[in-house]
């Protein structure tokens, strides 16, 4: 196994482009090292991206948007004084991952590129409209988070490409987001269903919405019908019921050791309602 710690993304990209066999980037390593030890994936090339300048930065840009380095950890996001005020749903989703120890290492990018359909931060990022910069042999391109995963364990990145930055839009006025997941215990578990909701209000009426579901299909879902069911409403019971029905209808889950098809389908609707209520309260400036 070859281990590299390049000083730039261009160098990292070149290393990956020329590598043979299995390549993994090492961010927090909380997926890579676990898979290595359990003999699920034994990489031939390991490229540690933590030595690249600025990878742990969390910056608020002049227009109110945010740029996060690809090695910024869950703990650093939670401890940031302002990020969580703008995007509580994204920060809470990341914070749900693992334990205190895991939080000290785990990253948004690692969570996304590991490609698990149950990844917690991903529905929250999709709802928030997060994009990433992909650096490759041909330079940089910007890609929406929902376009990265293409199946369990698979991403749209091609050989030589890696993510070099994460962009969260400006929060703007009267907006709120939330992420909820279902697990049978209270912590240290994998989402059986995850729901991210992000919305904006004009007075009491929802004017913009994005609803995303995790763990109910081979990849994260951005569900138009869910958004439509609440846009124009005041999130009254009828709108919530339509939202729940749309969320359940979008599910294409599997039966496995973590949950049944029927359970996931039902609970996706329940969590969509609950997350929407929290996002709505946040948009109104209420505590939730």
């Amino acid at each position, binding site marked *: 196994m070859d281990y590299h710690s390049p000083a730039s993304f261009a160098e990292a990209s070149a290393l990956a482009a020329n590598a043979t066999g299995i390549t993994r980037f090492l961010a927090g390593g909380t997926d890579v090292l676990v898979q290595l030890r*359990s*003999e699920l994936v034994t990489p031939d090339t390991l490229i540690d991206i933590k030595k690249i300048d600025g990878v742990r930065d969390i910056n608020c840009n002049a227009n109110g948007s945010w740029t996060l380095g690809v090695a910024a950890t869950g703990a650093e996001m939670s401890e940031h004084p302002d990020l969580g005020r703008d995007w509580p749903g994204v920060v809470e989703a990341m914070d749900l991952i693992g334990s205190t120890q895991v939080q000290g290492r785990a990253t948004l990018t690692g969570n996304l590129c590991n490609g698990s359909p149950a990844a917690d931060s991903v529905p929250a990022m999709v709802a928030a409209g997060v994009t990433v910069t992909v650096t490759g042999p041909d330079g940089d391109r910007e890609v929406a988070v929902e376009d990265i995963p293409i199946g369990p364990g698979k991403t749209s990145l091609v050989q030589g490409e890696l993510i070099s930055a994460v962009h969260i839009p400006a929060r703007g006025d009267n907006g709120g987001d939330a992420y909820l997941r*279902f697990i*049978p*215990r*209270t*912590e*240290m*578990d*994998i989402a*059986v269903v995850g729901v991210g909701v992000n919305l904006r209000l004009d007075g009491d009426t929802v004017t913009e919405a994005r609803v995303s579901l995790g763990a109910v299909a081979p990849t994260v879902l951005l569900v138009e019908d869910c958004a439509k069911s609440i846009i124009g409403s005041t999130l009254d019971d009828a709108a919530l019921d339509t939202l729940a029905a749309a969320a359940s209808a979008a599910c294409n889950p599997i039966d*496995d*050791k*973590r*949950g*049944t098809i*029927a*359970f996931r389908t*039902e*609970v996706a609707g*329940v969590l969509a309602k609950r997350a929407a209520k929290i996002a709505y309260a946040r948009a109104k400036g209420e505590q939730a």
Partner: protein
Amino acid sequence: MALDDRKTQFTFVGTRPDRPDGLDKVTGRAKFGADISAPGMLHGAILRSPHAHARIVKIDTSKAEAHKDVKAVVTRADFAELPFQPGLEGEFWNVLENVMAGEKALYDGHAVAAVAATSALAARDALKLIEVEYEVLPHVTDVDKAMAPDAPVIREGAADYSVPEGMHPNIVRYHESGHGDVEAGFAEADLVIEDSFVTEATHQGYIEPHACLGMLGNDGKGELWCTTQGHWIAQKTCAALLGIETSQLRVTASEIGGGFGGKTTVFIEPVALALSRKANRPVKIVMTRSEVFRATGPTSSASMDIKIGMKKDGTISAAQGVFRLQGGAFPGAPGDMTAMCAFAPYNLTNVSQIGYDVMANRPKQAAYRAPGAPMGAFAVESVIDELCKKLGLDPVDVRLKNAAHEGTKASYGPTYERIGLVETLEAAKAHPHYSAPLKPGQGRGISCGFWFNHGGETSVSLALSEDGSAQLMVGTPDIGGSRASMALMAAEVLGIPYENIRVTIADTATLGYNDVSHGSRVTYASGLATIKAAKHAVEKLCERAAASWGIPADAVKWENGCAIPSGPNAGDFDPRPLADITAHMGQTGGPISGHFEATPEGAGVSFGTHIVDAEVDPETGKTAITRYTVIQDAGKAIHPTYVEGQYQGGAAQGIGWALNEEYVYGDDGRLQNSIFLDYRIPVASDLPMIDTVIVEVPNPGHPFGVRGVGETGIVPPLAAIANAVSHAAGVRMKQLPMSPPRILAALKDNG
């Protein structure tokens, strides 16, 4: 509540000093199974079957043997030839077959070969070089399916004499007991409820995986260090499996990171010794968590039918149960225990119970706290709860009305001596928890539970030092703070401070035979032996004092750590403290020690009553346990903190078993969830504070009144939680675990 007139009689017993092993454990100094190494040590690794049931056609180890870092490879051919005998007499054969497969791999994870190499990584890599040709056979993992006429046969001829003619060969033991006439009893009932219940297998979930270091020379002499609940059984079993003399193998028990019954047998130990014999080097094996789940003993899974008749006043007129337990690919599922314990809390005129021991393609079950009892209690106490609900009766009152007491003929045969069930029920009724208001969405459940407790072969030795301190050697590994309890009991007899006594878990070469730390027997049996060994030493101390005073030995008695004349007629001498006598023991007759060897027979049975509040989210089926109270008879709590720890631990493990823990098998017969991520034991935030009430109804069979407390605490939780959840959800839950998908499905079915 505690019948503690005896408390005043004690100076040390009943106090709560720090445990002697505490500092070592919190500072990391304690040596567990994997914390040892030896010069020239090799690392062993085990190749395991990926199939649930397969004939082993051929094993080619030549490539692994050729690997430069590999020093030995073993298969079944490297173990002793033990003749197969059916039934329990063949237990050594069963263990051998389990630690290294013979003709067939019998479950996913069954060991088929092992290597020893110069590093753990090399050993792991070398396993991939072993080529095994399997002929995959049909498999069965479900208990009811394993009994069906068309089920694949795990092994012909494994059944013992107890199984009636004509049953499927997978049924290997059959138990039937009871008394009275149940049909007549049902006819007298105002309401009869008959229902069926299912529980999945759960693992003991000890945090420390199995680990050992074995050394065996060609001269047949060996050393073994391992994490175990009983090193003498490890010694006996390993010697038999390797064809050496028992006394030539010295076994030392490491500190143990949990066992709960699962470390009462051997898995990797004979393999390490076989590798060592071949390589002529010490060999260490440490299991991964996945190996622990796949190849060590979970508990049995169960399928049960219960029928109970009750009169309007709450009297149980008849009770009947059929308990089918699946225990993996070997005889041993405790269907008999389940049957005997299920109705044991009640004074019944008419009772009948049947237990089956059934084999399936799963790992060999191992004991897990009160083996067999929790499942039976779940089924029986659920039906009693349903009867109470339908007849509008208070569940504690009904249990009090039917409770067994001194003189009751137990459902499993004997007549009870003094027991404490009624006292636990009265404590439950009086406890503020029982009358506390419930919030909407919450339900309250109660259940009783019973366990036999055990005595077992026991040896203890106590030696006094010149400075008046004492060293106590016991042979029962400390799985729950027992070193503290032993020191307290010895202090009580000797009259010297707790801190002046050092308790050691002696190895097999330094003490006579000791049964395993199981059956809640340690504080009872090793405790009794400790008291007797200390009394033996006290006799000698009195003799020395008598000699120094020139009076007969029987004119001296022992009080508060001193020899004193037994009365005014004996003479007028100053008391001689223990340290004063030991200071001169070299010149007055030599070392002073005491010892005791026996099989104590007076282990008192024990009962508990649990109260649980649960809250169910009706939209997701998720349960939260909001309040929990354990009430149990300890006979006498030697160290109350560690008694409470046992009560809380039983409840915590019961919460896991009831709500989320289960062995999940795929259609291919392979275990789907062999890591803690998907095998869901409760995490700290899943548990409420677990309150405890220690009831003390002394056991007449122990000098200080001790009853075992380690196992009874896991008997009531499954039922108590199921009753709470069923009330909260408004639908009767008959299958464990009550995971959210199952509860949500039950709610949907219920409309």
